[in-house]
């Protein structure tokens, strides 16, 4: 158990990096609180696996330090750091039984037979794999193999952190859900810091107390699932999280506030001061877009089609060249067709400059 601090971390796989584009991981300072359940979310190639491997010491950072409880562990090996990692594909020792697989990390550390027996039984119980203990691990199904991989991380009760690197990739969809809730449950019972890497927002949002969103080697936002949804710090987060993602419309300043194609759009964060050369964008989630009632005037759009998902209706529209999604509750009357006007909830419509949320 430990608080994990990353200080001025940078990493490049190129021996002599020239510009920021050579860095797989750009400058980073971050603290993972002890006992937290974190998700590291981002598209493939955003540097999240690199970050994970730096924490586990499988990769040595080009610059910066990793601290466990204030102690510099940057030069230590993975087993000295006492961490556990579960990989994308289940790693099991084919020739051993399930029991011996789970006991392996303990045996290597010289635990007593009795202690090993206790721990293995306990973890097998948590993972519900007791009936398999005496079977050879090689012949099991992928989800059971992955449970064993997780189990090998969990048997050591003193690990500083358990990291999951997209652990559900090879699992059947209906088992994914089960394993995910199992993990959540495990976190509550063992209280070890867990970091869960994924590119799947559902996995991240259901597992984590706090989600770290990464893009192109840097952290773009850290927050609870609700914060990520309601107040994306970057258009990338808005777009990446949510289904469909946030609507992003190019904007220009028009007197007091921002506008889109000449229509003023009130936002929650009207800018105090602007350089004048930023690329401005208005971001609003489809959930906060509604059609104008009689007597109201809004942004003119062309409705292209409406699909009914059963729980809500999703409207595909176009404002000028920009695509726009709107989510309408099921109870509302007929969705408009053809030309219509939309209104954005001003409390939840935000202005972004060069991709980043403007602070006001």
């Amino acid at each position, binding site marked *: 158990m430990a608080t994990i601090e990353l200080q001025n971390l940078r990493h490049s796989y190129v021996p002599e990096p020239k510009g920021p584009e050579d860095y797989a991981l750009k400058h980073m300072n971050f603290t993972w609180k002890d006992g937290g359940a974190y998700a590291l979310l981002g598209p493939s190639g955003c540097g999240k696996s690199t970050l994970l491997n730096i924490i*586990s010491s*499988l990769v040595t950072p080009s610059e910066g330090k990793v601290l466990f409880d204030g102690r510099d562990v940057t030069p230590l*090996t*993975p*087993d000295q750091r006492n*961490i*556990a*990692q579960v*990989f*994308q*594909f289940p*790693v099991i*020792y*084919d*020739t*051993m039984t399930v029991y011996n697989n789970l006991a*392996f*990390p303990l045996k*290597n*550390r010289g635990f007593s037979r009795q202690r090993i027996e206790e721990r293995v039984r306990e973890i097998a119980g948590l993972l519900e794999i007791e009936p398999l203990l005496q079977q*050879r691990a*090689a*012949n099991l199904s992928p989800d059971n193999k992955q449970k064993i*991989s997780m189990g*090998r*991380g969990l048997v050591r009760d003193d690990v500083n952190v358990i990291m999951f690197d997209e652990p559900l990739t090879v699992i059947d969809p209906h088992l994914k859900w089960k394993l995910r809730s199992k993990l959540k449950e495990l976190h509550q019972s063992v209280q070890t810091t867990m970091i869960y890497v994924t590119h799947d927002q559902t996995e991240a949002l259901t597992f984590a107390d706090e989600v770290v969103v990464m893009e192109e080697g840097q952290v773009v936002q850290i927050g609870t699932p609700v914060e990520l949804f309601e107040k994306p710090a970057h258009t990338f987060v808005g777009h990446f999280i949510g289904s469909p993602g946030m609507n992003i419309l190019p904007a220009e300043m028009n007197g007091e506030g921002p506008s889109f194609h000449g229509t003023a759009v009130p936002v929650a964060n009207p800018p105090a001061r602007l350089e004048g050369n930023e690329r401005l964008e208005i971001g609003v989630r489809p959930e906060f877009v509604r059609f104008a009632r009689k007597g109201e005037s809004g942004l003119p759009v062309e409705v292209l089609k409406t699909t009914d998902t059963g729980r809500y209706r999703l409207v595909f529209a176009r404002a000028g060249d920009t695509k726009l999604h709107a989510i309408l509750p099921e109870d509302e009357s007929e969705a408009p067709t053809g030309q219509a006007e939309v209104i954005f909830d001003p409390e939840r419509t935000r202005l972004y400059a060069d991709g980043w949320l403007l602070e006001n």
Partner: protein
Amino acid sequence: MAHKTENPRAWLFVAPVLLLVAFNAFIPLMAVINYSVQESFGNNLFFWHGIGWFEQIMNSERFQATLLRQGFFTFIILAIELPLGVAIALTMPKKGFWVPVCLVLMALPLLVPWNVVGAMWNIFALPDLGLLGATLNGFGWEYNMTSDPFDAWFTMILMDVWHWTSLVVLLSYAGLVSIPDAFYQAARIDGASRLSVFRFIELPKMKHVLTIAVLLRFMDSFKIYTEPFVLTGGGPGNSTTLLSIDLVKIGLGQFDLGPAAAMSLIYFLIVLTFSWIFYTLMTKNDPM
């Protein structure tokens, strides 16, 4: 099952293969079986001899000695080439500039024709002119492959190790590079020692290629003919006369077709049985 379409023309497509197999395998094998149960005289006169030749071969001290010699040879070269091949494969780089260099160096001995290998080593081992022979003699070992059975065996085994260890290396290497990095990383996190990594990750993952390696080396060494024949001609005396060399002596030297045919069948059955038992044992626990 659904209705099957019958089209006699299909046989036309199979015919070339059938013909080829018939001419290069089936008919010659049948001829051998035919010879093995008959006594032959000149003018194509044949008499039924039953299992007489088989009894004669099985009871012959010459055959027993040769079989023992052959078993010994195969055992030794397997005992040397397998661990050595795996050890070399483990030390080879996994990526970078040296990979192709190592691979080409390893493949070189495999590219040399067998009789050339024999001739090369024959010259290499000459006690007065050969690099190996002269060097050993220079160090005070009175080395002479043509008069000393031990020296002959030593050279023959060294030659086979030189020629064929590469095969084991290449197969093991292929097995090693196919192990995903995650396995090594997981082992590091689990605190496994180098020995454990070999014992629990590398060896199990190499099991299939090593099974193939053992099978190939077993069959090839059991059938080996050209290299020892060119190297020692089976001598001194008959100390390096392996099964196939003896078989050629009986069949083509003495023209005893019956005993030679019986011997080749026994020989064939030994190789087949061993390979089958070995393969069955090695694949017994595999997941389907």
